[in-house]
């Protein structure tokens, strides 16, 4: 088959096709600073090679240096990597790794809407990035867990030290992971789901 070089369409590989019975999808968002390992985590558990989707964001140029006094809007294309896990014949989980510039995460229309929850991937060398995103997740009422991607040279914080440094409520789980390892990344996702289960059970008994 000859394909035109200008045709940007790629086809899903045969082995990547979902069964026709796939009926319901859920999503989890992986947030964290630049270079913390979001795409690494997505790649290690995804059944497909991570794909990239993009969106054009328009934001008022309020925080942009603007001396003209004219309202400006800047359009920026933001790309996001994502992966997929077929949980059973009907249920499919998508994992979205947010892009580096955190001001776009919450502008992305519908990214967090309907998400099961979020994983905040933390680099203990740059806690300040996590601080801001945690505040925003709390505001948006998106449940989350903290996963410390254990870089070999990172200072090892005790979970409780990290909890107080990030000002986290005691019920929010904090786990250490190695985002390169499939089992470790999977365990982070299971931790999030168990946390959601216990929160749901608590709210049911109230």
């Amino acid at each position, binding site marked *: 088959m000859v394909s035109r070089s200008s045709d940007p369409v790629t086809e899903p590989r045969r082995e990547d096709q979902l069964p026709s019975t796939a009926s319901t*999808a859920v999503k989890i968002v992986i947030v964290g600073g630049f270079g913390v390992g979001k795409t690494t985590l997505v790649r290690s558990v995804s059944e497909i090679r991570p794909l990239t989707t993009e969106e054009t964001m328009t934001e008022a140029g309020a925080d942009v240096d603007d001396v003209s006094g004219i309202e400006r809007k800047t359009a920026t294309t933001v790309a996001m990597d994502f992966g997929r*896990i077929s949980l059973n014949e009907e249920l499919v989980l998508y994992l979205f790794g947010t892009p580096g510039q955190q001001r776009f995460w919450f502008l992305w229309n519908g*990214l967090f809407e309907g998400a099961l929850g979020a994983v905040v991937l933390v680099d203990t060398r740059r806690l300040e990035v996590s601080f801001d995103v945690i505040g925003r997740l709390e505001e948006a009422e998106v449940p989350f867990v903290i996963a410390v991607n254990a870089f070999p040279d990172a200072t090892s914080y005790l979970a409780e030290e990290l909890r107080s440094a990030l000002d986290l409520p005691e019920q929010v789980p904090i786990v250490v992971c190695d985002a390169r390892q499939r089992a470790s990344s999977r365990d982070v996702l299971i931790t999030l*789901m168990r946390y959601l289960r216990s929160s749901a059970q608590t709210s049911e008994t109230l």
Partner: protein
Amino acid sequence: MTTSGQDWDTAGPERLYVITGGRSQSGEQAALDLVTLIVTREESQLGMQPELAAILRICRSPLSVAEISAHLALPASVVGVLLNDLLADGRVEARAPAAKLPDIALIEAVIDGLQKL
């Protein structure tokens, strides 16, 4: 020799404007979620807009809106506009994502699936 494709940036606003006929997703139609699953119901016809035909081709087995966006190299919102056209014509079926939590049965199903990885 030049081909028409070299005259503009392939991801530039002009191309996107042409693909959607200048429409954006904000309208009477509900925005599709990134993980809404799309399945082809009717194959494409001759002369159909190439992007629409491509969607019908790759969605023979279910694909999320995000995956369609990735395979077509188009923004998710542009894909949303195209999908609304296909939905209106009954050429594709949309399978909505799971409703808002808490749903213990759904959570259990996700945990079970992850444990089998």
